[in-house]
């Protein structure tokens, strides 16, 4: 797996469940929330890799694990040919410059008492990259590239004095000031207004080329993912159920969950009104995930085997790079019928 820029193998993050005192006395077993439970994938240099799923699917936790903001329970993470799974905080430090993250809410990411110039330039000082006028120069240049012009005006402003979309651009400027080569974007446009989203997406795409970035793009919105991702993994209850190029997954979704997710995306055009109902039920409790296939209780195609045996992520014949984790797939040529949306 040395070839890939980022490689994740059988990654696990189990969070212990807080028990109350009495329960703790009498129970022998600790319980865990299996937020990420055996996830493997790779990201190549220059790629935009999407992680999609509903809340609680483990997509954000996976991102935090790769950034080593959490200590994984099991598995392995390789970053640029190096095993970083259990690197110490000190050993991680030089790598931190190369990996950055932007979150959904720019208000929570920015210190309200820090000017924009200071917020963006702070990392330069911490990492001892540039100081004083040199640092300012770099900040001004970065603000310009984010379209925050004239930059010296924005340099002096505070976060509350600018719009939400501009704040997210400040967050991006801060993330890129150290010239990282890997960026985790966790729902970066979810809070923005409709018209601002398109602008931020466009900016993210341009920055990727300008700075030769590799993205892990975490989102619940499959319509957005289609616009920016090259490859995508769909997660359900801590596991990947389907992975492939955007083209493969969107035009030939094979997991019933992927199909449901794709069908559920509201289409901004009444011509494409959905006619087939969406499967009922909600994402189950990750402390006691269902046996067998985790989706079986909500799956219209579930059979006995799905209730007992966990399916493996297997390659789809004739589609290199496309993998699906479903017992039904490939059996006697069976394929779930994608829910047709009629015009």
């Amino acid at each position, binding site marked *: 797996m040395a070839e890939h820029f980022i490689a994740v193998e059988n990654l696990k993050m189990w969070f212990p469940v807080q028990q109350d005192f009495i329960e703790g006395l009498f129970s022998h077993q600790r319980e865990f929330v299996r937020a990420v439970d055996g996830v493997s994938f790779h990201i190549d240099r220059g790629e935009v890799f999407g992680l999609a799923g*509903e*809340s609680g699917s483990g997509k954000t936790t996976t991102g935090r694990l790769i950034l080593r903001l959490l200590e994984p329970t099991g598995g392995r993470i390789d970053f640029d040919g190096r095993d970083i799974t259990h690197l110490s905080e000190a050993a991680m430090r030089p790598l931190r410059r190369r990996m950055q993250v932007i979150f959904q809410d720019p208000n929570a990411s920015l210190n309200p008492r820090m000017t924009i110039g200071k917020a963006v330039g702070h990392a330069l000082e911490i990492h001892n990259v540039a100081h004083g006028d040199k640092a300012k120069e770099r900040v001004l240049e970065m603000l310009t590239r984010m379209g925050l012009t004239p930059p010296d005006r924005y340099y002096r402003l505070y976060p509350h004095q600018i*719009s*939400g*979309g501009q704040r997210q651009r400040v967050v991006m400027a801060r993330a890129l000031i150290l010239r990282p080569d890997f960026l985790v974007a966790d729902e970066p446009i979810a809070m923005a*207004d*409709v*018209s601002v*989203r*398109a*602008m931020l*997406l*466009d900016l993210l795409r341009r920055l990727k080329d300008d700075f030769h970035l590799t993205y892990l793009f975490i989102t*619940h*919105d*499959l*319509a*957005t993912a*289609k*616009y920016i991702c090259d490859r995508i993994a769909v997660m359900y209850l801590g596991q990947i159920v389907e992975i492939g190029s955007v083209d493969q997954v*969107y035009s030939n979704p094979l997991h019933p969950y992927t199909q*449901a*997710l*794709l*069908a*559920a*995306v*509201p*289409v*901004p*055009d*009444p*011509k*494409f*009104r*959905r006619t087939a*109902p*969406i*499967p*009922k039920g*909600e*994402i189950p409790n990750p402390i006691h995930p269902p046996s067998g296939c985790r989706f079986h209780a909500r799956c219209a195609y579930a059979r006995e085997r799905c209730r007992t045996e966990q399916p493996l992520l297997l390659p789809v014949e004739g589609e290199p790079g496309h993998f699906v984790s479903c017992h039904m797939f490939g059996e006697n040529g069976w394929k779930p019928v994608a829910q047709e*949306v009629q015009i």
Partner: protein
Amino acid sequence: MDERKQSGNGIPLLQLRDLVVEYYTRSGVVRAVDSVDLDIYKGEVVGLVGESGCGKSTLGMALLRLVRSPGKITSGKILFKGKDILTLSENAMRDLRGPEISMIFQDPMTSLDPLQRIDDHFVESIRAHDKHISKEDAIKRAAELFDLLGIAPDRLQDYPHQLSGGMRQRVMIGLALALDADLIVADEPTTSLDVLVEAQFLDLLKDLRRRYNMTLILITHNIGIVAELADRVAVMYAGEIVELGDAGPLFAEPLHPYTDALLGSVPNIKLDEELKIMGGQPPDLLDPPAGCRFHPRCPYAMDRCREEEPPWQEIQPGHWAACWLYAEGKRETLHG
């Protein structure tokens, strides 16, 4: 849809006439809702779309006379079943909220009492509507409603925090149904829900409107759910309704350049089109631009747009827009 056209000759359930809502802030007066006219007919779903700050939520709150200080409804009329609710006493208004006009918010937790079980919420609502019903019968009705909402009846004993977000939102719509409200105003009802749960909720709304001939005003920034559910769409920009029409024609051939730009900036999973990026930002409502408020961002702006407010015109039957292009006969500019 069709029901509306049939009953269209009757008076609308709700008529807004020249409605103005203003916020009196320290820096000046903000006109959040500016001279809005809108008719809502029984049985239709009207989507009210726009971006943050366009006044759509303020308008929703105004329909229940719930605009909070420093905001105030300063002029205009809100005729509900032909009667101006702005002239009602606070007591009469309280009786109207719920049984006549119900509201659903983005976060159902703000509307549910955390110390009350779900069945108590229902009993209270059902009894508010029908004072003679016994508690047992009310619980029975609640269980029937739960069945319709797709929630197991044993969850009636739960407290709100024990339900998932999707269930809570279904409880909210159930409470509105228990009250038999004539009009439901839903402000971003699916925004806090996951994609699948949102789609399930939309399925439920589709089913309920068929059964109950529900009248719904759907306030949202989510163009997708409006396209999914609404019969008619009103687009708001900077406090004004700039376009109004049946969903089909409005999405297929938007008349106002703002609607056109807004629809173009939303990713469509069914198509492979590039996104159109709308430049600029909505204006500061403390000091809105002269003429058409969209003119600084409008690619088709003419001199007249900078000086005079465009007229609100019916450009095609039932399809209205406020844009000078049509008065000037330059329709093909947008759809050449």
